[in-house]
């Protein structure tokens, strides 16, 4: 894991002290709200419906046990005993008091964490494949370049007043677990003729105008990464529309000018600035890479794991659902579900955080990840330790065996917290999970991604859900629109709207009809929801959602 150097440490401390001064001046009245707002946003502090919200960065979703423990301490000391992990691998505290925020930031700085650039029109927290460094299907750990991008983008003078926010994701694997194609820029580590380099995507994004990212460069040599990404952001910084915030994101710029024109402009700019990069970035990258060396793997028999699995059906179910293939065959990647049926997706209590920290320290080479799917990952676990981990997780209600299933729902905070929301998301997620748990159908239904957003900004990624749910305000009443056939992986697709929306009372029965309808029409138990959708098209799914309309059409 990356360890701060003196520069990082001094920068973060300096920012905390600046923000403390700004908060003091706001409280004594010398700064107005309008004057203060840009400062608080630069430091991740939002104002929501019921309170302030502090968004803390977890760079590329990686943290250690000590950091997780500190997040628990902050939750307990300054908040209401829990935190909310987000789709951008950050954590949000929903109830901080203004005067406490500088103290919280100091406590975070003690463990090399901060809230810088988690808001505002800047380059935001770089996100990564949550299995990075551990996955069996990976060419290389993408986190060193994520850290390089973090260092380059933090307080980058050219990019502090961009047309709009800018989100970068990285992955080193063939299977896309980082939703690369829904980011402003994405970097995928690839190999060509034995050479390592990067495929660069541009112009993806969800929100009001969803777009799938396009390939801007199929193969970029390693040493060109920073100047090339700088060229992309620089071209957009000049071209991006500042007249209309809904048209300001780079996806619109790419759409309006065309990928060829953007590519030409980027290449020109790249040619101009490439010579100014002396190679020091590559020296720094080599230093960063050393921080991400593989752990010293434990050796030993995994027979105990196999025997426990054979003897314990609940453990077997959890192992089948929540473990992923590790590049070391004696190891597993553990996904800890923050989606207990009926719980708030992505929330963890201070006790749960401390347990996860302890397990990481004891069994997981002191490493944890946050996934964009709002779960927590132990990326390095020797299989012989899995029974102990499972039993410890059970003790704190973290052993739900539902990763990738219908109750493993992404949901944004929605109108329960967020000032931008047009409807609630959390209760819908809770009710769907509870309902399918009652029906005992979850495992039979199999892999299925439901993603819920409480407004068109799409923090809940509804466009790329197999089933997407978008909460809207229709004449002063919450209304939920369903999209079908979205995909967040390397086969990325934007879901299509199924038809008229449903009221809060109707939406759960509608989802139930849809899923039961799928069970009726799938070829066999191996055909997943998305596969059946691709084979059959939307119509039979729409018929299940709107049976009256289907009956009328049949008559």
């Amino acid at each position, binding site marked *: 894991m990356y360890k701060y150097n003196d520069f990082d440490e001094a920068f973060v401390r300096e920012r905390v002290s600046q923000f403390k001064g700004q908060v003091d001046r*706001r*409280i*004594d*009245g010398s700064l*107005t*709200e*309008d004057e203060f707002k840009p400062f608080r946003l630069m430091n991740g502090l939002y*104002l*929501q*419906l*019921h*309170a*302030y919200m502090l968004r803390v960065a977890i760079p590329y979703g990686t943290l250690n046990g000590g950091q997780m423990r500190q997040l628990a301490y902050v939750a307990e000391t300054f908040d*209401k005993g829990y935190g909310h992990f987000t789709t951008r691998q950050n954590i949000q505290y*929903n*109830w*901080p*008091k*203004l*005067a406490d925020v500088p103290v919280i930031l100091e406590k975070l700085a003690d463990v090399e964490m901060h809230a810088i650039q988690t808001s505002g029109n800047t380059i935001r927290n770089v996100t990564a494949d949550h299995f990075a460094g551990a996955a069996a299907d990976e060419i290389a750990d993408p986190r060193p370049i994520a850290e390089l991008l973090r260092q380059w983008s933090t307080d980058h003078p050219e990019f502090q007043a961009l047309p709009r926010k800018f989100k970068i994701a990285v992955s080193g694997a063939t299977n896309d677990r980082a939703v690369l194609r829904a980011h402003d820029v994405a970097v995928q580590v690839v190999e060509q003729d034995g050479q390592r380099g990067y495929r660069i995507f541009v112009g993806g994004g969800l929100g009001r105008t969803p777009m799938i990212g396009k390939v801007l460069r199929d193969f970029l040599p390693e040493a060109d990464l920073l100047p090339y990404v700088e060229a992309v952001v620089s071209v957009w910084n000049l071209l991006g529309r500042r007249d209309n915030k809904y048209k300001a994101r780079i996806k619109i710029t790419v759409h309006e000018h065309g990928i060829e024109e953007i590519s030409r402009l980027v290449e020109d700019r790249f040619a101009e600035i490439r010579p100014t990069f002396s190679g020091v970035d590559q020296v720094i990258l080599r230093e960063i890479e050393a921080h991400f060396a593989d752990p010293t793997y434990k050796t030993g028999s995994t027979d105990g794991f196999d025997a426990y699995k054979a003897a314990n059906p609940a453990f077997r179910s959890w192992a089948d659902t929540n473990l992923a293939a590790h590049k070391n065959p004696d190891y597993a990647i553990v996904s800890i579900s923050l989606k207990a049926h009926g719980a*708030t997706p992505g*929330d963890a209590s201070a006790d749960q955080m401390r347990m996860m920290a302890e397990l990481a320290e004891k069994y997981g080479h002191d490493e944890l990840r946050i996934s964009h799917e709002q779960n927590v990952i132990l990326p390095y676990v020797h299989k012989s330790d899995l029974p102990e981990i499972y039993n410890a997780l059970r003790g704190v209600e973290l052993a739900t065996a539902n990763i990738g299933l219908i109750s493993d729902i992404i949901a944004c905070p929605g*109108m*329960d*917290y967020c000032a931008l929301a047009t409807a*609630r998301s*959390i*209760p819908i997620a*809770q009710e769907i999970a509870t309902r399918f748990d009652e029906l005992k159908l979850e495992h039979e239904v199999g892999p299925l991604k439901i993603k819920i957003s409480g407004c068109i900004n799409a923090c809940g990624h509804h466009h790329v859900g197999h089933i997407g749910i978008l909460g809207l*305000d229709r004449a*002063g*009443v*919450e209304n939920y629109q369903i999209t079908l056939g979205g995909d967040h992986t390397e086969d990325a697709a934007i879901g299509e709207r199924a038809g008229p929306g449903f009221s809060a009372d109707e939406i759960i029965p509608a989802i139930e009809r849809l899923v039961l309808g799928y069970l009726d029409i799938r070829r066999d138990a191996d055909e997943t929801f998305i596969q059946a959708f691709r084979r059959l098209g939307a119509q039979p799914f729409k018929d299940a959602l709107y049976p009256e309309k289907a009956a009328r059409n049949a008559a």
Partner: protein
Amino acid sequence: MAREFTPKVITTNHLLSGDAVWFTVDSTWTGDISEAELLEDEAHADLRLLEANAQRDQVTGAYLADAKDGENGPEPVHFREAFRTRGPSNYNHGKQAEV
């Protein structure tokens, strides 16, 4: 004919706590919407909003929200404003927990 003015309350978040608050007849802030001043005249509402926003060391940016005259005082009209009087639906936190 002038369009009819929907009654309003002035509301915002308290500067220090971030708690939802409403503006009273006495130009103070209350955490209970039923104690707020119901503004039934547009010109008066605009004036009161200026006065409310002048208290810049007390609150964040205040705005006018639709309200109606209920049994015990002003009540919210829109569900968003109703949530602000209670708190989130997933935990017993916020105002609903203080009762």
